[in-house]
């Protein structure tokens, strides 16, 4: 999955997320401390309907145990900046173990954080490489996908930021 680079605010090592009482929707995982600020942390995995993810099990406090095979079957992680930034070599995705990260995204004054299984870095992408999103069998992912491009022989969903923030605003809290 990819998001425009401009909305990335911070990327830090995963930190324990504190659940919110009475919130049963798995979309909102809770609050997390990002450099002294307590931010709401959401689960993009649950938003796009990726269930098989062991890495999302929250260890608290800090006894992190990322298990192998956390790369979700349908998930194609990746980060791109369409036609904006200089191309950077992409990190090769490791089959075993990865580097889960907590990502903070910010648009205007609205800030959200979420965990990713791995951050592949910036990818420079030409506008013409972006293809219209095909009908995906994953409903929720389809509604979020603005377009598709190919990266390392994998199809990457380029997410619609407006849509993403709108859904988070509505559903997460």
């Amino acid at each position: 999955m990819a998001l425009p680079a401009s909305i990335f605010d911070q990327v830090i090592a995963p930190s324990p997320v504190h659940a919110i009482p009475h919130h049963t929707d798995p979309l909102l995982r809770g609050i997390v401390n990002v450099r002294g600020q307590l931010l709401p942390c959401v689960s993009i995995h649950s938003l796009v309907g990726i269930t098989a993810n062991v890495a999302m099990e929250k260890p608290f406090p800090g006894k992190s145990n990322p298990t192998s095979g956390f790369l979700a079957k349908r998930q194609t992680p990746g980060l791109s900046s369409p036609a904006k930034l200089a191309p950077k070599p992409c990190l090769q995705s490791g089959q075993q173990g990865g580097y889960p990260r907590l990502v903070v995204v910010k648009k205007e004054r609205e800030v959200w954080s979420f965990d990713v299984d791995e951050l592949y870095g910036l990818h420079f992408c030409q506008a013409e490489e972006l293809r219209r999103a095909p009908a995906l069998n994953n409903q929720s992912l389809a509604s979020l996908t603005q377009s598709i491009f190919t990266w390392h022989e994998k199809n990457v969903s380029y997410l619609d930021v407006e849509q993403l923030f709108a859904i988070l605003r509505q559903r997460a809290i």
Partner: protein
Amino acid sequence: MIYSRSEFKNVSMFEIFRMEVEKQIIVLNDNLLAVENQIATENPEALQRLESLMRAAHSIKGAARIVGLDDGVRVAHALEDCFVASKKGQLNLASHHIDVLLSGIDWFSQLGNITDDTHAQWLSEHVTQTNQLIEALGQILVEPAIQPVIQATTTAQPISSPEPASTPNPSKQPVRNNDEASDAKPKENLPPRNSKHTSNENGHQNAHQNDRADSPSDRIHSRAESGERSPSISSGDDSELTPERVVRVNADNLNQLMALAGESLVEVNWLQPFADTMQHLRKRQQSLTALLDQLQQAATLSPSGKKTLEEAKSVALDCHALLSDRIGDLDQFSRRFSQLSDNLYREVIASHMRPFSDGTQRFQRMVRDLAREQGKKAKLQVVGQNTRIDRDILDRLEAPLTHMLRNAIAHGIEFPERRQQIGKPEIGTIRLEATHRAGMLSITVSDDGCGIDLEALRQSVIEKQLASPAIAERLSDAELMEFLFLPGFSTAQSVTEIAGRGVGLDIAKSMVQDVGGLLRAFSAPEEGMTFHFQLPLTLSVIRVLVVEISGEPYAFGLTRIEQVKLITPEDIFISETHPYIVVDDETISLVEAHRVLELPVAEREPTSTLPVIIVKDHAHSYGIVVDQLVGEKEIVVRPLDERFGKIQDVSAAALTDEGYPLLIIDVADFVRSIEQMASGESLDILSDRSSNDTKEQKHVLVVDDSLTVREMERQLLQNHGYQVDVAVNGMEGWNTVRTGSYDLVISDIDMPRMNGIELVEQIKAHPQLRQLPVIIVSYKDRQSDKVAGLNAGADYYLTKSSFQDNSLLDAVADLIG
């Protein structure tokens, strides 16, 4: 005077002038009012205050000169002259002098409020007033030096002389008028020039201009009174003569600073464990050296081997020395750094708090002006000026406090004659008190005026058809007082004593509710009225007990905990389905914290003891079973992200020592959740037993914060075959409505924590609940309230008088049958 544009080019200089004026005006107002209350200028404190006044006027003069405002220089100079003369004892400042001086200060505050490029315009528009002001100020000096006031009151014969001749000339442009642009009518004119009378009489004349009933003998008395009251004011007033220097900082920056300071405190904690591992390394190194020693003694080596071993030993010793040295440095650094970040953190937190006096500066002046305007006598006593208050709360308190002080003067404090008749001191006292009490900020506004006649209030409630006579009779005093906070309540013409009391009280109430506090009114007829604010100390440091629930840290404020106990399974008794324990002969129901919070069960090894936190709310005690006690700790309360709104059972968040988030339990809320859960369970049991009966019963949720109303509605509906659940506020209502299956919601509007309008909006915005019919039943019967209710999505809007007739039942029947 000619002002050319070019003189006003330097924008930043004007900004500095403005700030200077703003700062000095506070000093001037404070000290001038204090001096007024200490007429005897021989008093060393008064002299000190006059000194401050002189300095302040002088500073303004200097500032005005720098920016080239000649008129400003002249006015400041005239003010300064008055203060100098007064300090030398050549002039005794009487109330009417103070009026003129205050108008001089107001002139500056107006000047200070002007945006830069219109100074010249303003000055040329106000040139007449300015000149008159300067003249009036000069006039104070021209008046003959007079006898001290207390003597004058004993020889006050001149009062019998024809006073009207000396009243201010109406044709003269009133200078005082320009202090409030919005105030259309001149409040007081300037005292006459060339007055033949002594200054204190003139002061009198002014003070009682609006008070026709005032008799000469009253005046003598009042003068004597004001002479006497001076010591009491100065003793009760711990105002600082040297104000703190204050700068403005963007609130976001400040929050960011706070977050970073907190983070640095957490980071420091990493250093000590690191130093410990270094110590460990040193120990290993020591044993290495010891091993080398052993080797040297035990082994027979070739000469070259011996040499190498010697070298190895000396290297090991070098390493040891170096390591010890470095560890010492690291230890010192770690200590210094942790102290530093601790101080940094404390300072940042302290910057969020301001002394109460910061918010009360204006009030002395306001009380004085209002009382004079109305021909009443009142003094304001501020207690707890140094009480530290969160700046956000202080800002929001200003409007409600202003309002209550106004009310106290306008409706509470009686006219001086009346007060004398009933044997009260002629000068009414308004007390404004701020203290920290039980982890809350408590602010009390009390007056010794006439209070509120509860019976009259009860009648007014009935007349306004806010409640039927039957209900009104049953309302407790406290419930009755709640009516005061209804919007527009006091406009009832029938109860003159309380007319006007309630205007704006609803605004005060909603402000308090916004910050999660309480506002209560108490009244003792003929003895006065008291408003009591109980406000949270958000963003301040609190002591908490940190516990683990469902594997995550939570904190209970220490002030809210009755007791903490470790219990064994043998201590637990079971009554029907509820487990309980007995502590000091009191039965205490046990609840598991994770069940209340709807969190998963923690995975942990079964232990023989269970930690229980006993909390108390009103009459009931509950034992909350947590997974584990972590420890007592001082934490900095951090507000939760605004997007969360109010999270049920949680008041705020904080960071643990490790830098992980922890949530602070809102105990009052938590207890309500327990009660609700308990009643929900008992209902479940009931409905299981009589499932056949309840099947056709319609399920209604009643949300109201008044017990009386809640019970009324419950009984009424139950008698008509509905199954009824209750919730005590909007937040609880919202939480309940989402968990249960209801056919109808009946809600009040004015409720703490979430009002009825918000509740309706939430329901109507929820995809599953959108179809759920809602009836609003409120005391608010204005058209605008109805429109607001219906716009929010309510299906019916009824007033509380609907209990008497059948309109509520009709509406219910209409909606759900």
